[in-house]
């Protein structure tokens, strides 16, 4: 059964890619290509759920495919199955959405390439969590990176897109180099590069070697996950990519960075000393707070969502770090709880960030711009997109009764046991992490109030927004599918948590107990670590809203109701120019956090030549200091470029010089062999 499903999954994605290549321009070819992607995603989803539901761990070997490097080896355990389900959950709606969305590229760009790259990307992404040896893993990983690079480049006539692609390719290839180093370090003492052998070898290696492997893997996977300071590609590549691709990259692909960290850190290395967890917590908390702070300052809706992904990955890594730390401190209960919460948030973020990117793409499709200052009033013109975006915004802001609230709350509570540990450093760190998490949640609510309010409410601020039309059916189906996933993840919080708990316990070793979440619609673990009743929250919320409505109605019935204009300083005629814009909304926070942002403002007023009382135009420009680009990447890139120019001197173009190099290399090699006495 499992083998059939795998064959269906690989076959469907492959057939989808082939159909796109053969007939990508034709409607039938595009329909077949989409059907392949949806069928592949469905098969992956089924395969993953089967293993998650208690099916046997399933393996598949093709040792002859790339025999020299160890062959293809697949194995699906609970952790892999969880991420396979995550891929399928977002891939199917995103592929459907792509049908309508990619019509705008018809005639300008190759739809064949887009359809084929999408199918190959999904195939590689689905194989990453299945891989059971280094070569399979790296092949799938690199396939995923390269396919997504070509997807980012879809709109390649824009110079901005090419730049974004370069950033993305650079970051992902640097990450791959670190991963290679990590796996080579891990495999140095192992008989083969199968994960089973690596596990055994890692158990016997020294602490320093394990620490080095962990640090290398953290850089490699962190660059994919978008951890600060390796996040720089996200706000560039996500806006440049087609929106369903952004949804897949942000919802799914960066999650595989989290997968890799769990696989290498907990499964292969089997956990480590406390500093691993502390490092992850510090990086996670930093990414969460800085991510949301940068999200708040964005006027570009897709860049805002990209920075919000940095924030959410930070929160997930914070939970993962707490899991590592608790395991190192021999607290398996809290460790399982923290990991279960982090995995639940991973799944939730895939659902609502996918939804938000699809909805943002629908806005872009309707208005032709990503700049929120040129949106406004879209809720009336986009009656499907607006509510879908609102649902995603409520979920990601961590507001009840949607899924984001449950996972963030559980994440919050899973950190609480850390305050009670005897090490003062850990206790203080946990208190700080809790504060950072709370600050992040509050700022995220503000960022998404901005994203929804500025885009969808009030009056349209541009002709494009005023003439916006709702997207075609396929795009609406994709959005509604992911919106339903958000609601389903909230309603099914208990079964989902039971699953993530089992996955987490499986990672922590055979002796770990999965955290139990008692029935009766309440999260209650035996040690009393986490307490929350979703039912009570929902009843309280609905009751509160109903009560407010009743009180307002009772009060209003005693006083006559009067309708008046919005107060606009008594001006005659109110125009959209008087509205709050995205920049204006963020202005107070720009001042509060000016130590982080270092904002600069530039106002240029152009007067009438005859009188200073008549203003012809006002130009306002505000920018914030890009710390990481300015102080990390620019010096690094300048250094690399300088080194490259120096190395250019070697390439003189003279055959004699090249022959001299060869002779020199030979002499040095022979000298080394003579000294070491090797055969």
């Amino acid at each position, binding site marked *: 059964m499992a083998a059939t499903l795998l064959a269906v999954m690989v076959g469907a994605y492959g057939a989808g890619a082939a159909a796109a290549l053969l007939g990508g321009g034709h409607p039938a070819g595009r329909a077949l290509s989409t059907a392949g992607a949806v069928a592949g995603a469905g098969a992956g989803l089924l395969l993953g759920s089967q293993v998650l539901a208690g099916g046997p761990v399933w393996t598949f070997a093709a040792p002859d495919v790339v025999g020299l490097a160890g062959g293809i080896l697949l194995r699906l355990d609970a952790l892999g199955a969880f991420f396979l389900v995550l891929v399928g959950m977002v891939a199917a709606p995103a592929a459907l959405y792509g049908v309508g969305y990619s019509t705008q590229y018809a005639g300008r760009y190759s739809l064949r390439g887009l359809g084929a790259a999408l199918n190959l990307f999904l195939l590689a992404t689905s194989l990453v969590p299945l891989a059971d040896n280094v070569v399979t893993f790296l092949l799938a990983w690199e396939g995923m990176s390269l396919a997504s690079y070509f997807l980012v480049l879809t709109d390649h006539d824009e110079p901005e897109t090419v730049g974004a692609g370069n950033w993305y390719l650079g970051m992902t290839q640097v990450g791959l180099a670190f991963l290679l180093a990590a796996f080579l370090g891990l495999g140095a003492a192992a008989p083969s590069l199968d994960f089973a052998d690596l596990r055994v070898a890692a158990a016997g290696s020294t602490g320093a070697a394990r620490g080095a492997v962990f640090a290398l893997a953290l850089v490699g996977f962190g660059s994919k996950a978008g951890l600060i300071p390796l996040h720089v590609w996200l706000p560039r590549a996500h806006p440049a990519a087609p929106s369903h691709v952004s949804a897949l990259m942000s919802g799914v692909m960066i999650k595989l960075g989290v997968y890799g960290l769990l696989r290498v850190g907990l499964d292969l290395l089997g956990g480590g000393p406390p500093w691993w967890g502390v490092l992850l917590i510090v990086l996670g908390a930093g990414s969460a707070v800085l991510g949301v702070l940068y999200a708040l300052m964005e006027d570009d809706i897709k860049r805002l969502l990209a920075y919000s992904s940095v924030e959410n990955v930070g929160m997930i890594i914070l939970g993962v770090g707490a899991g590592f730390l608790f395991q190192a401190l021999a607290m398996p209960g809290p460790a399982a709880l923290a990991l279960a919460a982090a995995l639940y948030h991973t799944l939730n973020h895939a659902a609502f960030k996918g939804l938000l990117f699809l909805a943002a793409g629908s806005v872009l499709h309707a208005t032709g711009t990503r700049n929120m200052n040129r949106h406004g009033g879209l809720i009336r013109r986009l009656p499907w997109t607006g509510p879908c975006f609102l649902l995603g915004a409520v979920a990601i802001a961590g507001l009840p009764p949607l899924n984001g609230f449950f996972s963030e709350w559980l994440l919050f509570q899973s950190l609480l046991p850390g305050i009670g540990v005897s090490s003062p450093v850990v206790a203080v760190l946990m208190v700080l992490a809790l504060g950072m998490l709370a600050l992040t949640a509050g700022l995220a609510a503000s960022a998404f109030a901005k994203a929804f309010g500025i885009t969808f409410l009030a009056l349209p601020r541009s002709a494009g927004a005023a003439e916006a039309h709702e997207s075609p059916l396929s795009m609406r189906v994709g959005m509604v599918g992911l919106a339903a996933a958000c609601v389903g993840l909230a309603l099914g919080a208990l079964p989902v948590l039971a699953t993530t708990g089992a996955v987490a316990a499986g990672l922590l070793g055979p002796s770990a107990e999965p955290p139990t979440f008692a029935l009766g619609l309440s999260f209650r673990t035996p040690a009393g670590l986490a307490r929350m009743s979703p039912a009570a929250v929902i009843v309280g919320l609905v009751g509160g809203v109903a009560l407010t409505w009743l009180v307002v109605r009772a009060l209003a019935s005693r006083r006559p109701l009067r309708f008046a204009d919005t107060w606009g300083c*008594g001006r005659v005629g109110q125009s959209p120019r008087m509205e709050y814009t995205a920049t204006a909304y963020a202005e107070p926070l720009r001042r509060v956090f000016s130590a982080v942002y270092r904002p600069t403002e530039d106002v240029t007023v152009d007067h009438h030549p005859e009188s200073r009382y008549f203003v012809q135009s006002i130009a306002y420009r505000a920018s914030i200091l890009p710390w990481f680009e300015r102080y990390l990447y620019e010096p690094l890139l300048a250094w690399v470029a300088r080194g490259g120019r120096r190395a250019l001197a070697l390439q003189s173009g003279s055959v004699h010089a090249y022959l001299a190099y060869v002779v020199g290399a030979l002499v040095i090699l022979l000298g080394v062999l003579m000294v070491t006495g090797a055969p």
Partner: protein
Amino acid sequence: MLLFAKMLRVGLVSVPIGPPAPGEEDVVHLVREVDAESRRLFGRALAIREVDAGSCNGCEIEIAGLTGPVYDSERFGIHFVASPRHADLLLVTGPVTRNMEVPLRKTYEATPAPKLVVAVGDCARTCGVFQGSYAVVGSVDRVVPVDVFVDGCPPEPAQILRGILTALRRPLRA
């Protein structure tokens, strides 16, 4: 850091409200009465929105005197607000000019009920020297309903306070 250094060096410079100085008793009494009436009527301190409907700014100087160090009406809870949405009472000055007719009406509409209007200065009642000008629509009560007129060109701050008190004591319009 400069701020903290200055705070340390200078210390507390404001003085607490003592017994009223000679000649000030009337005013203090008046302001306290306004505050008491406002609390009775609205359940809280009084919020005033000032509308200059075309005045020569003489009345504005006197109104500004209300918030100055002698009267300092803020300490009794009479404060000027930035939006009619927050106001209980509109203080309108000057003859209503053509340009200010619509804004004045809009301001009145934007003020939540129950609300009061006090027209300050002779111009608000009679248009004063601006009477008959092509730029003037007329007195304030031609545009919005007025509860109390305060005469004077310009009226003293104490007179304005008495006008506000009179308005507060009037039975409220529905």
